[in-house]
């Protein structure tokens, strides 16, 4: 009934699969190590005091820095957070605490859908809604970035709150504490580490976004000049500098990439250690 060499064939297939699985893992991780290596290797020569205190150099000018971009990025992220965090937090609370509500299922689903909308589209949306009326501005960029932030915060807050056991809520409710106070004082407090984690991860994400920034602010070479004007941005600078033919700008691109990757991966790593510390 059984072909004589069939078992051998099965074993060979098994070994081949084993190799393929580890080969895929290597192929997936090589880019990570290569990116880290190259960004550090090529970014370090760009780093000096001027890099942190001087604004973008003009074409042909030597030296210069990214101080204005760091300033602009912080302001833009800050404004985006002011819009995005409250909305995300309250939405997450709604989804977790009123999950039996019909609206919850719908919002949860479309929250996932929103998180899958390409960031360039969100940029075009902000362009249509804001840039066309008040012009390229920090406000437009922050609006776009906050839309990217909201689904991330909403989701992590919802998941964090759901981890707080039901009996803790019931205990508080049984004491006569109103439900909203239970949520704010007990559930949210209990989950605050995870909530902070979600917020930090969403900030890391928008710090690296460049497509929506491009279509809402464009490239800005100077210092911050008001919320209704554009501001410089680190992630976008990398794009502009890299696509330019000027050697000095390309060096600055790698330097900016180093700063950005330290910020983004730093937040990610810190958050992981932070979460693991709980257990």
């Amino acid at each position, binding site marked *: *009934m059984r072909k004589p060499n069939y078992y051998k064939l*099965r074993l060979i297939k098994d070994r081949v699969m084993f190799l393929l699985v580890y080969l895929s893992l290597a192929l997936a991780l090589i880019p990570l190590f290569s990116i880290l290596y190259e960004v550090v290797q090529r970014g370090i020569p760009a780093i000096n005091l001027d890099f942190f205190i001087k604004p973008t150099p003009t074409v042909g000018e030597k030296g210069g820095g990214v101080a204005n971009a760091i300033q602009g990025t912080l302001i833009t992220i800050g404004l985006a957070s002011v819009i995005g965090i409250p909305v995300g937090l309250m939405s997450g609370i709604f989804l977790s605490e009123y999950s039996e509500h019909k609206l919850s299922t719908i919002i949860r689903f479309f929250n996932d859908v929103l998180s899958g909308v390409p960031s360039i589209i969100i940029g075009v949306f902000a362009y249509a809604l804001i840039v066309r009326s008040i012009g390229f501005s920090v406000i437009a960029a922050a609006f776009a970035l906050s839309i990217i932030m909201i689904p991330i915060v909403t989701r992590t807050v919802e998941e964090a709150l759901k981890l707080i056991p039901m009996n803790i809520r019931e205990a508080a409710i049984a004491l006569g504490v109103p439900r909203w106070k239970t949520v704010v004082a007990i559930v949210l407090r209990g989950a605050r580490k995870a909530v902070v984690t979600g917020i930090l991860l969403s900030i890391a994400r928008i710090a690296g976004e460049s497509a929506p920034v491009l279509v809402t602010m464009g490239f800005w070479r100077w210092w911050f000049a008001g919320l209704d004007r554009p501001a410089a941005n680190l992630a976008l600078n990398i794009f502009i500098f890299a696509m330019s033919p000027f050697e000095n700008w390309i060096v600055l691109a790698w330097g900016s990439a180093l700063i950005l990757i330290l910020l983004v991966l730093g937040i990610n790593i810190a958050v992981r250690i932070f979460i693991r510390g709980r257990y």
Partner: protein
Amino acid sequence: MAPKLEVEDLNAWFGTKQVLKNINIKIEENAVTAIIGPSGCGKTTFLRCLNRMHEINPDARVSGKVLFNGLNIYGNGVDPVMIRKKIGMVFQKPNPFPMMSIYDNVVAGLKLNGVRDKKSLDAVVRRSLELVNLWDEVKDDLNKSGASLSGGQQQRLCIARALAVEPEVLLMDEPCSALDPISTAKIEVLIRKLAKTYTIVIVTHNMQQAARVSDYTAFFYLGELIEYGPTKQIFENPKHELTEKYITGKFG
């Protein structure tokens, strides 16, 4: 007649915790051997050592010998995959493959071995399902999902699945613990029937079940084999004080 399985100095660990200590036992062919003992005594681990299922847990370690027809299954170059084909297993909770039909569940093991011939597969399905007294109940629903059956039917399907690869030994890990009394009775009748052609080792926490179905009984306590002998003798005249206490319900 030589015993079907001979266990010599078997030790097993989970991490640093030793769960089996120096087990020596000879399991007779075409008989039902019941493993009893309080929970945590190593019954299930012992069973899983008999077809090298213990080692699929990454922390697990085994030393000693298990001779199957005189061949040490832990010897160099012995492939656990081959061993598991000859020593089949039925689990505590029925675990049919829910994404497969009843038919495909029964022939899952054969298909792994490259049997594709529709006629011989049909024959195996019929024979295996008849053997477990399930054929009449499902013969018209062979394309339905295995998960659509009742708990007792699912467990008999799992037994049929194990029998389809033509093992010589069948290991059963508390096969009735998740079932109602009627389904349990059906499985027990089945076990007696199968014992005519298969060697069966059954772990049970239910002493009455051991008394009903087994020819031999082994009593385990804290990872050690305390007493082993014909079921009649173990139940009527246990030699060891611990065995007697357990049988008479004085602990556990």
